[in-house]
């Protein structure tokens, strides 16, 4: 990453923070919120999926931990800050469990193990109404009372900035090198002393922590959650799709992916009515066929060819 790219990213975030001065429609702010939220989630996913090459399709587990954590810990009487700490802790605990079981597995086994874990949590949330409220749902406390949409939007921008910064720092550190080495060839990584299991676990812990914060933010915006909303495989898929479509293992990929997918989904709904999923599906197919390394991967290839 060159200096000008850093400057670009920085000014991008500053500009994003100024958006509410221009955009007043709550709806547009909410769509923008979703874009930034999923950018942050995609970036968090990218640490594990893109950099370390471990395809997680179960990030809903951490997302749900965030949303349910906020609801349940505050219901138990904890102050907000403590609940935030606890929910991050809960997500990291899940990460520890998932990582423990599945990091010994490779390739598709790992992906399926993450799905399975998230689905077990999903079922537990549905079937244990005494703990989670079951499908009847639980209320989530409001993080902001005035100018809610604007505040949530700004929070999402900050979360994206934080994940971007974290990803940037990690990608240039020894940790980041190790992640890439594991992705490329785990045996080589081991031979130079990389504790692959621990390195992957650390990446997952960081990823889970950011994802949980995203989940808490999301739950609080809706004020009320049910398992299907925050623990379903749709959430896991959406997080992964945003990053993969944008370009796994690139810094800008998740942001681009979130912007394209979330706005496409909204626009298609209005234009194509019941056919919007057909068009959305075709969009995925077309991107894969014409930009097989994701959008940013494709852009990079073009830049390289120019050079």
């Amino acid at each position, binding site marked *: 990453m060159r200096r000008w790219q850093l400057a670009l990213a920085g000014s991008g975030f500053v500009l994003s923070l100024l958006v509410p001065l221009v955009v007043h429609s709550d709806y547009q702010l909410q769509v923008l919120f979703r874009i930034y939220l999923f950018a942050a989630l995609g970036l968090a996913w990218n640490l594990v999926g893109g950099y370390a090459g471990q395809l997680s399709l179960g990030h809903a587990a951490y997302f749900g931990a965030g949303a349910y954590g906020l609801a349940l810990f505050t219901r138990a009487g904890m102050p907000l800050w403590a609940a935030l700490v606890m929910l991050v802790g809960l997500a990291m605990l899940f990460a520890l469990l998932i990582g423990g079981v599945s990091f010994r597995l490779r390739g598709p086994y790992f992906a399926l193990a993450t799905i399975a874990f998230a689905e077990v949590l999903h079922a537990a949330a549905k079937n244990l109404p005494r703990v989670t409220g079951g499908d009847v749902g639980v209320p989530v406390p409001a993080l902001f009372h005035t100018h809610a949409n604007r505040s949530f939007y700004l929070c999402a921008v900050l979360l994206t900035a934080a994940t971007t910064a974290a990803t940037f720092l990690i990608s*240039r*550190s*020894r940790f980041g*090198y*190790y992640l*890439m*080495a594991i992705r*490329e*060839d785990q*045996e*080589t*990584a*081991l*031979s*130079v*002393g*990389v*504790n*692959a299991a621990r390195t992957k676990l650390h990446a997952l812990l960081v990823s889970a922590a950011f994802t949980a914060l995203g989940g808490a933010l999301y739950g609080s915006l809706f004020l009320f959650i049910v398992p299907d909303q925050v623990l379903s495989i749709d959430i896991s898929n959406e997080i992964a799709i945003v990053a993969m479509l944008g370009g796994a293992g690139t810094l800008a990929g998740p942001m681009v992916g979130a912007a394209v997918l979330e706005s496409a989904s909204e626009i298609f709904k209005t234009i194509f009515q019941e056919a919007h999923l057909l068009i959305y599906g075709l969009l995925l197919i077309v991107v894969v066929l014409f930009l097989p390394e994701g959008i940013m991967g494709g852009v990079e290839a073009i830049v390289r060819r120019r050079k």
Partner: protein
Amino acid sequence: MNLLEIEHVTKRFGGLLATNDVTFSIREGEIGFIVGPNGAGKTTLFNLISGVFHPDSGTIRFQGRDISRIRPNQAAELGIGRTFQVVKPLRNLTVLENVMLGAFLRTRSGTKAAEESRGVLRYLQMEKIADSPASGLPLPMLKRLEIARALATRPRLILLDEVMSGLSTAEALALAETLKKLPEWGISAVGGVEHVMQVVMSIADRVVVLDHGTVIAEGTAKEVVHEPRVIEAYLGSKYKELGL
């Protein structure tokens, strides 16, 4: 003092004895070579020393410490570097970055790691290609890259599995010249397996000959090539004729 001691090490795969009661040792500052026909158990032995496999029985000691059950990354931390018979460069990274990966074992700082790595590349005469991507390198360079990455971890012992196979005699001899200097750096080496006997003879202090997982001869290169069992199992009759 013995740096590495292999004592009665046996490893089975199913019914197959890949190494059978193998015993030998390598002293500090020594270059040893394990030779033997294909399937003799050389790679298996390296995998045992570097923690990829664990012996079914017997012990492996490194600097006096039992390392029979360590994991590969722990072996690296203790100072055992290794190369792979089938080269495994990280293809999306540059040569320098590949080597830095090794250097990161001893430092967290990227600048330090880069500096260290450039030193290693200089030693292996690879500084010119430091910034080219590892993919698309010719085989001799890939073999050297394997060595460079292992050296960057600052090992006390380096395991070189077939680093010279696929090289022409001239190239192999050039590499051997370089490797000869390893002990000056305080690094001992166990070379894997070179079928290029000429090269083995020129740099090995000690040669262990394996056949069917069993040690059939041990000594200096000159000694072992005259052992009838070695000639029969490994070298073939031609070497006798050549009278090496």
